């Protein structure tokens, strides 16, 4: 039984396979990612979870020798069709990375606007309101509103990560991918990001890769467990953590390996 069956599907992943040269990293993955939900991807290191979300915004193919087969539909459209421009796709599917990576040559304000400026879509008359609204949505506004012209690198790690989230939100995506966004942060900063996820999922579809099962159980509505490139089990987070159907899932979440 799905918890929120009324939420419409965003990503429909069918028979997804991915390779790095000869190395087969994803094997026949099927998954359905819904709107206004947090979908967590868990699994041990090297199980293909990062590769999986990097297929969703076509970042995987940037690595030389990387290959993808199968289909991923976003709102009914196959994003691997030849007429889909990955550059435009990435404006709809934002991504937050493992290590906070604000642009060091830019101020806080410039970092928030960087997506728009990079792509030549910055409208000066609305810039201030874009900065404020993105920073507010990333729960960072109150901390930086007086220091917008300081370098982005001057913030703490957790603030930098929220700045990166603000930067992603400013481009106005509808899906946000997060690749272990808290793994470089302390517990307090992690808690703030997790709180933020709860608010953000009201407006976005969020996919988060995490190595922490506690985090997955705290923040997500659905969870997928990957092992050696296969999606072993996928379903409601409550069920995955209380009554997994696959033996391997149970072993992993009870800490028998990983």
């Amino acid at each position, binding site marked *: 039984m799905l918890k929120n069956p009324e939420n419409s599907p965003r990503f429909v992943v069918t028979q997804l396979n991915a390779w790095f040269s000869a190395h087969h990293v994803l094997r026949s993955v099927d998954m359905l990612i819904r709107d206004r939900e947090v979908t967590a991807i868990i699994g041990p290191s090297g199980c293909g979870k990062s590769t999986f979300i990097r297929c969703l915004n076509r970042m995987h193919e940037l690595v*030389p020798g990387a290959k993808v087969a199968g289909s991923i539909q976003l709102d009914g459209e196959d994003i691997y069709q030849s007429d889909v421009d990955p550059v435009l796709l990435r404006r709809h599917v934002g991504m937050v990375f493992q*290590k906070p990576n604000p642009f060091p*040559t830019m101020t806080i304000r410039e970092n928030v606007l960087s997506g728009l400026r*990079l*792509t030549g879509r910055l409208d000066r008359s609305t810039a201030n309101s874009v900065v404020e609204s993105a920073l507010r949505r990333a729960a960072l506004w109150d901390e930086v509103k007086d220091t917008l012209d300081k*370098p982005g690198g001057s913030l703490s790690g957790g603030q930098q990560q929220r700045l990166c989230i603000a930067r*992603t939100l400013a481009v106005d995506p509808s899906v946000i991918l997060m690749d272990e966004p808290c793994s470089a942060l302390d517990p307090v900063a992690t808690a703030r990001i997790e709180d933020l996820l709860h608010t953000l999922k009201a407006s976005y579809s969020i996919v988060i890769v995490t190595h922490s099962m506690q985090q997955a159980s705290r923040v997500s509505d659905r969870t997928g467990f990957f092992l050696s490139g296969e999606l072993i089990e996928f379903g409601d987070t409550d069920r995955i953590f209380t009554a997994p159907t696959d033996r391997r899932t149970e072993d992993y979440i009870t800490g028998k390996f990983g």
Partner: protein
Amino acid sequence: MKRHVRKWSRRKETLFIGLCIVSLAVPLCLLFAMLIDVALDGISRIDWQFLTSYPSRRASSAGILPGLVGSAFLIVLTAVISLPMGVGAAIYLEEYGERGRLANLIEVNIANLAGVPSVIYGLLGLEIFVRFAGLDRSLLAGALTLSLLVLPVVIMATREALRVVPKTLREAALALGATRWQMVWRVVLPMAVPGIMTGAILSISRALGETAPLVVIGALTYVSFLPQDPMSAFTALPIQIFNWVSRPQAAFLENAAAAILVLLVVLLLANVVAIVIRNRYQKRIG
């Protein structure tokens, strides 16, 4: 036993530091000796008249104006030609070009080109720019030849600078929906400017001091006019120095020493400009 080992390793460290200091001191002392020697010979000749006069048969009334102006023109032209070309080539090789055998071959070749004697570039310039392109013995032909000479250094320094821009920042830009070009232009290049400027400093210093290729393409040694445009005939400071050094009279040797001092000052000024640009960008990054 233990104490003994520690004593010995400490001695080794002292020895090593001593060697380092010696290898720093020897070239520094030689350099200073040379500078002092040149300064003693030349400093008395440097005055306004020396800087603003044309060459003359009489050493006492000869000056370096055409060489100074020629060198200034050459440097600016060379920088304008070689920097955009070199940076562009490096961007292509580093950011767009496919990795593979051809890329390796090109890389090795560029590294080798940086080591080719400058006379060879002079011969190439003579054939291509002076004769084939019909530029004659002009400033432009000289600047193009010097550009060929410094291009490998510019390309290598720029590639190195591009390579150290972290992958995470490139990915951040691409994930925001930037095209490869937007990523390079707005994220990678600004971060690479300090490294590129270091390459530019090295190349400009080298070009400023070069004599051989300019002699080969036929820069004049006796010039009684100033270059008006890139197509003018010209001379340059190193050529003027070369010319004076080869004279038997002692007074001309003094002139040469004075011109060397001026060349050094020009070189330092050019480097200061590049270093200021570099530091400004480094501050923004740091």
